[in-house]
């Protein structure tokens, strides 16, 4: 699910940046620091929409750097267990297939695919197929997240299509 979320980020500024263009530099630094990152708590931070407040900028005793506690609004994407999402298949293996839902990578194990759908080793491209459906690279599928794993820099999801109203979509 995409959310609009208020977040904070602390920026340390070297005294050489203090001056008329300081706000611009803080803004640019905030964008480059947080956009495209991912944390377990907030999910993927896709884009900063607006900066609400950069804070007073308190000079740290001892080294002269100023600390700005910025507050900003951002578009974030976080997957939840039990959520149904649409995605695109990127890679099909015997053990299952990978689906990309925007920045999120999901894996659907062959055990979580309907038993009618079999891995087809003889096809030109690796695929899962039943009589009327084929899952191969670039197929759009609707899936349900059954679990997520959070790494330092990425969230990874395990998903199923073995329920009603899930599977290939057009």
């Amino acid at each position, binding site marked *: *699910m*995409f959310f609009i979320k208020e977040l904070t980020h602390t920026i340390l500024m070297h005294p050489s940046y203090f001056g008329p263009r300081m706000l611009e530099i803080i803004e640019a630094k905030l964008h480059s620091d947080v956009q495209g990152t991912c944390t377990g708590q907030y999910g993927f*931070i896709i884009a900063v929409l607006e900066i609400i407040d950069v804070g007073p900028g308190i000079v740290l005793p001892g080294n002269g750097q100023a600390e700005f506690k910025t507050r900003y609004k951002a*578009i974030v994407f976080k997957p939840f267990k*039990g959520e149904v999402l649409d995605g695109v298949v990127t890679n099909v293996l015997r053990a299952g297939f990978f689906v990309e839902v*925007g920045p999120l990578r999901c894996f659907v194990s062959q055990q979580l695919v309907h038993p009618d759908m079999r891995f087809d080793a003889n096809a030109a491209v690796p695929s899962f197929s039943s009589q009327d459906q084929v899952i191969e690279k670039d197929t759009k599928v609707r899936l349900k997240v059954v679990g997520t794993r959070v790494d330092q820099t990425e969230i990874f999801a395990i998903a199923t299509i073995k329920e009603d109203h899930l599977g290939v979509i057009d």
Partner: protein
Amino acid sequence: MTTRLGRRTHLEEEDAATLKLGAEFNNAGCLLISEVKILLKEKEGKPGVDSPVFNKTVEYVNMFSKFSTEDTIGLVRATLRRQANLTQFETAQLANLCPSTAEEAKSIIPSLAKYDDDELQPLLDELQSMRRFQD
């Protein structure tokens, strides 16, 4: 015993099926894929936004956005607001997935089970027709 129970509720697992999104997201504003598309279009090409996460998201929202104009999105939001008890999450899921029958809606968004089919169906029909008749 009470402390153990207390700890368990504290560590309660996030589960979209029962609308438990965790402390950070329970009251956060949900965005429709179509809204993300419009917001990101304004950002595209600006310095500092060009990351793999951003590009993949742009690609994704362009592919799965169901409603194309701000006007239609406004209408969709207004329609879903009429069913006053829908949470943000349910609203966004309905508009993102556009289920065609009440049974399908309840199956892919389990928290909708509390509504009657007769309540949901007109809402879903309206969403479908808005999707069909947008330019």
